[in-house]
């Protein structure tokens, strides 16, 4: 079979980064994307941290069509009828180079694809890769419809579901407890209205996280990001908890309740709903990572399970970009040596270990275990809200001493052995 240098499966950030680097190095590379254009099947919650990846793709990171740089973090803890919000901002976030940006993937990815094409990558949309081709126990290309394309290296960047990794026997079936589903709505509003509502200057953005009764006690939380003239509003829900909940709760109804909360309604008020999307997120961390390397094949981005949810920060896109670049660098080196065996390609893992990707995944190995404690989504939000309720409320009776109130509420919720267990678990984070 005739072979080109490399095939990339999937036009997300991992795949595009890989194709860009391969093309830049003068390698023949075809990227196959099943959507109408790269980005059209991709969804993000909303924010990319550019610090970790600027050095991998400086020209892309510095000119990408991001939405707004984030200068304000808002955290809201909610009970059924009450909420406590806090905001954090720092002057340094208002000065470049910016730490993080809000982003919409249809726009960013299709722009990125144009940059990769300009470097010489062949970006072919509307092509779904059905299966891998094999030769002497090594991956040797792909099959898309009636077409077979041979390649010395296949980079699977086909997203969190990654049928390629499964077909290659590099990972087992997905388990509900290892993944979450994100549901997102896009609301269009005037730029100035967004800036006024969030207290932002030109180009500045805000990011919001919501935890507590928005998931009715299930693992997950809400998010809100300000784009240029739209808001991204959504919920992340553990698939296992959603599947096994006894209250008949489903994602659409939770989303309706979330956007109906006054804490969210005030931001999206008057906005026109433009899109309703959903996507899965790997939440299991390094413990369930697939094999990353096989003969003739590398796995990058979400397909490799590279994502990290630490509650207050949720990351994925940086891992995708960095791993895509490193997959390309590994492939380039192997192609130059005319050897794309598993042994040569294993340099990919070494590169990942020497970067931030695997060390970060390793440091936060237990993040899911710590965050997936039900009390975090039930008892603590209720405690915080009730405590503030007691402190702020003046009613007709005589007021109890503040310390006595706080102690009573704390006793009710957190002065117990379960809290100690949760604190002990938190040491693993």
């Amino acid at each position, binding site marked *: 079979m005739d072979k080109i240098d490399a095939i990339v499966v999937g036009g997300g950030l991992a795949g595009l980064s890989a194709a860009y680097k391969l093309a830049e190095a003068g390698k023949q590379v075809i990227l196959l994307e099943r959507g109408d254009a790269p980005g059209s099947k991709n969804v993000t919650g909303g924010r990319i941290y550019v610090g970790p990846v600027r050095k991998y793709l400086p020209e892309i990171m510095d000119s990408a069509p991001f939405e707004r740089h984030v200068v304000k973090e808002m955290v809201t803890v909610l009970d059924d009828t009450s909420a406590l919000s806090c905001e954090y901002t720092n002057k340094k976030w208002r000065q470049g180079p910016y730490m993080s940006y809000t982003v919409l993937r*249809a726009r960013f990815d299709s722009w990125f694809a144009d940059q990769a094409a300009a470097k010489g990558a062949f970006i072919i949309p509307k092509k779904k890769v059905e299966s891998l081709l094999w030769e002497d126990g090594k991956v040797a290309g792909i099959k898309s419809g009636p077409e077979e394309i041979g390649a010395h290296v296949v980079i699977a960047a086909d997203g969190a579901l990654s049928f390629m990794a499964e077909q290659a026997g590099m990972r087992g079936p997905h388990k509900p407890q290892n993944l979450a589903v994100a549901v997102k709505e896009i609301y269009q509003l005037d730029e100035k209205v967004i800036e006024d509502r969030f207290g932002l200057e030109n180009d500045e953005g805000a990011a919001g996280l919501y935890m507590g009764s928005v998931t009715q006690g299930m693992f997950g939380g809400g998010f809100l990001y300000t784009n240029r003239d739209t808001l991204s509003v959504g919920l992340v829900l553990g698939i296992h908890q959603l599947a096994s909940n006894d209250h008949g709760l489903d*994602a659409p109804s939770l989303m*309706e309740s979330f956007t109906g909360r006054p804490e969210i309604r005030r931001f999206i008020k008057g906005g026109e709903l433009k899109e309703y999307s959903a996507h899965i997120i790997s939440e299991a961390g390094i413990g369930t990572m697939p094999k990353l390397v096989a003969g003739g094949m590398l796995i990058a981005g979400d397909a490799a399970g590279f994502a990290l949810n630490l509650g207050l920060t949720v990351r994925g896109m940086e891992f995708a970009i960095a791993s895509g670049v490193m997959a390309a660098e590994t492939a380039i080196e192997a192609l130059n040596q005319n050897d794309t065996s598993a042994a040569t390609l294993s340099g990919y893992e070494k590169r990942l270990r020497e970067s931030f990707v695997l060390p970060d995944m390793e440091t936060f190995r237990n993040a899911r275990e710590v965050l997936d404690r039900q009390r975090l989504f039930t008892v603590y939000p209720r405690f915080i809200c009730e405590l503030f309720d007691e402190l702020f409320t003046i009613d007709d009776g005589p007021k109890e001493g503040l310390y006595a109130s706080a102690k009573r509420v704390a006793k009710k919720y957190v002065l117990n052995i379960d809290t100690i267990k949760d604190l002990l678990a938190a040491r693993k984070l």
Partner: protein
Amino acid sequence: MTKKVEEKIALNAIKNDVKSHILLNQSICAGCKERMCIRVCPAHLYSRNEETGEMVVEYAGCLECGTCLIACTYGSIKWDYPSGEYGVQYRYG
């Protein structure tokens, strides 16, 4: 302000194939009591036909997240991406 999920999906750009990319094994579904697919699908595509008792999936509004495939631990769902050119095309993402 409240919208039904069907109305929300109608806002998306979706090109539907004539054949479904989601197939159910009714004999497995018949033995399932939890019907996790109904709860987890963000597009509300799953339902049970009250007359026949069979599970029904409307592939046309699929958001292609794959949550149903992961949630159905009985393995009843055969799910693939729609072929190239079809399915949802996110304009924002």
